């Protein structure tokens, strides 16, 4: 019972966040900006870029967060406007099944080979 009590206390602590709301917003914004490609740059994210394009996107993201949009809805919004190329996180669809699943299959295959090797 004592262990249970300690765990309950620990989990109460876990639910407690020390960050203020605007700090949270900044954190979210940076996270989102890092996942957006600057379309006119060479391999830079919008976060890393100072181009005018990046500037516009930053404003859009800022506005969308204020409107209360979720992270994923912001990505969706940008995808619709600029295409899949703009988001660094490829969506799981018929184009990307291989991309997402092949490494996992190879891992299982490796596991099977290992299993055969071990007595």
């Amino acid at each position, binding site marked *: 019972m004592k262990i249970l009590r300690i765990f309950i206390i*620990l989990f109460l*602590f*876990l639910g*407690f*966040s*020390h*960050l203020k709301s605007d700090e*949270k917003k900044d*954190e979210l914004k*940076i996270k989102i900006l*890092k*996942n957006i*490609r600057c379309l006119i740059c*060479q*391999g*830079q*994210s919008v*976060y*890393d870029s*100072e181009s*005018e394009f990046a500037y516009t996107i930053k404003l859009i993201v800022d506005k969308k967060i204020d409107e209360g949009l979720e992270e994923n809805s912001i990505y969706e919004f940008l995808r619709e406007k600029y*295409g*899949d*190329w*703009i*988001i*660094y*996180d*490829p969506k799981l669809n018929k*184009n*990307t099944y*291989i*991309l*997402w699943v*092949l*490494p*996992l299959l*190879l*891992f299982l295959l*490796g*596991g099977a080979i*290992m299993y055969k*090797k*071990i*007595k």
Partner: protein
Amino acid sequence: MLASQIGYYSLILGLFFSILLSGYSVKDFKIKSKVINQNLLSLSFLQLFFVIISFISLILSFINSDFSNETVFNNSHTTKPLFYKISGTWGNHEGSLLLWLLVLTLFIFIFLIKSKEQPKKYRILTLLFQQIIIIGFFLFVLMTSNPFNYLFPTPKEGLGLNPILQDPALAIHPPILYLGYVGTSIIFSASLAAVTQNYVSREWAYHIKKWILVSWIFLTIGIMLGSIWAYYELGWGGFWFWDPVENVSLMPWLTLTALLHSIIVLEKRATLKSWVIILSITSFTLSMCGTFLVRSGILNSVHTFANDPSRGVFILIFLFILIILSLVIFFFYFKDNNKDLNNFFLLSKETSILINNWFMMYFLSVVLIGTVYPIFLDVIASEKISVGPPFYHKLIIPFLIPFFIFMSLGPGLKWIKSKIDNKNSLIITFIISIILSLFIIKNLTTEILYYTVLVSVAFFLFFTTLKELFTKKFNNSSQIIAHFGFSLLILSILFNSILSSEIITNMKIGKKYTYNNSEIFFKKIEEKSKSNFNSIIAHFEIKNENGKIFELKPEIRIYNQPVIITSEADIKTTLLEDKFLVMNLVKGNEYFNVRYQEKPFMIWIWISVLLISLGGLMSFFKKQYEK
């Protein structure tokens, strides 16, 4: 002018000696003596000598700003400091290939000197396979990428070197990285030679392990230098971007790391032969692919400075020939004589090393597929997708958890059959790791569960390796130090990413910005001019929570040749954290965009990588067989 001529003809002479060397090798292969003909060594030296002459000629052309040489014209400028004139030699496509060639010929020469105890036929075959690669590169340089093309009339001034390449870390990054890349060519040639001679044995493993270590150490340090450069020059405090060019250097590193582990099994237990050969071939193929992918301009990347698809075709065909050759040799010559030794017990060092290889191959497949798949999709379906950090994080990070646990347990196991004899202390260590990380993490971030799990396993790895560092007698110190460095690296990266904080704001001169009891004060700017750039240096005073004041001076440089504006961050490094300030011009405005970051444990990331390399270095100098 004269230097270019000498350089060009030296290259042709080098090619001539390579062909001569190949001919003599074939002849000597048939002669029934136990030692190889001394002529082969002399010819190998001549081949190396002329490539050195050629390389020095190119350096001299750069130093003298000889713009009748096309490579110099394209990549240099009279106002550039001497150091960057020299480093400009390999900061471009032609020069970097000449450097490849230099290392190729250097390594085979060293191989010949250092392999005197090895069987004669094996040595000659290694030399021959290496000559195929060398001649291929000679032809590549002479036919598609001659560094000594003559320009007439001679231009008065060169086009200059991309300013972001004018940097000390990046000046030595390519040579170090290439030593790693090209080292895999020796492993490749030696593996094929060993297969044909049925010499894949414990003795061979001991001998080739040194070469694996050489490649691995240089590759590790090379990647680190690139990363350091990206940290202060390219990114805004990031040090790894999962950029295709970074991935391309990581891939051979992963296979080499796997090889480094499985070669120990071969050395100790004379098994895993075919796997070691496959890894050797893969490591070299990936190094070649690296050159191909970077130099062909296929990758849309910050690093692609030299775009030329026609050269890519040459490398692609060459690579294709080498792969076919190695597959043919592998399938026709490879014999595994002791099949009965092939099964391992679950609890044994062999199995733990296999698990390491299993994960390494998985990480490799993620990086390889993530890097190459978008190119294929673009070609086949004309669909453009971006594969960036979220993809790699999602597929790699969950697998790190079992990986770290296996890595904590593996080194404690014995060969053949083992048991875990310190179960209790391991369980206690594990529980301590969980509690410790829970207490540290709970106040720091919103993603508590995610980070607690990660930090727990990282701590577990750290504590178990730390314990080994202190309890084990120093018979395997190289492994322990490398593993300790790795655990330190993981912890530093984790805490760096959790604790980094950042302020982005626009500021005018003379203004203050306050946040959380801290203050950024934009004091003034001054202007300076140097031969190759003018710069605006800003003076910032930063007062942190404890009232401590320090100054940071970021710079904006306007390079003159070519005209490019770069931002130079100012970084104050201490053992605990890096303070990182960078600013940017905002077009048409009188204010500057200012980013201030506090990045904890940054220096520990570099220190841990150095520790990992040190482990490799100690293993390199170890004289005895694996225990």
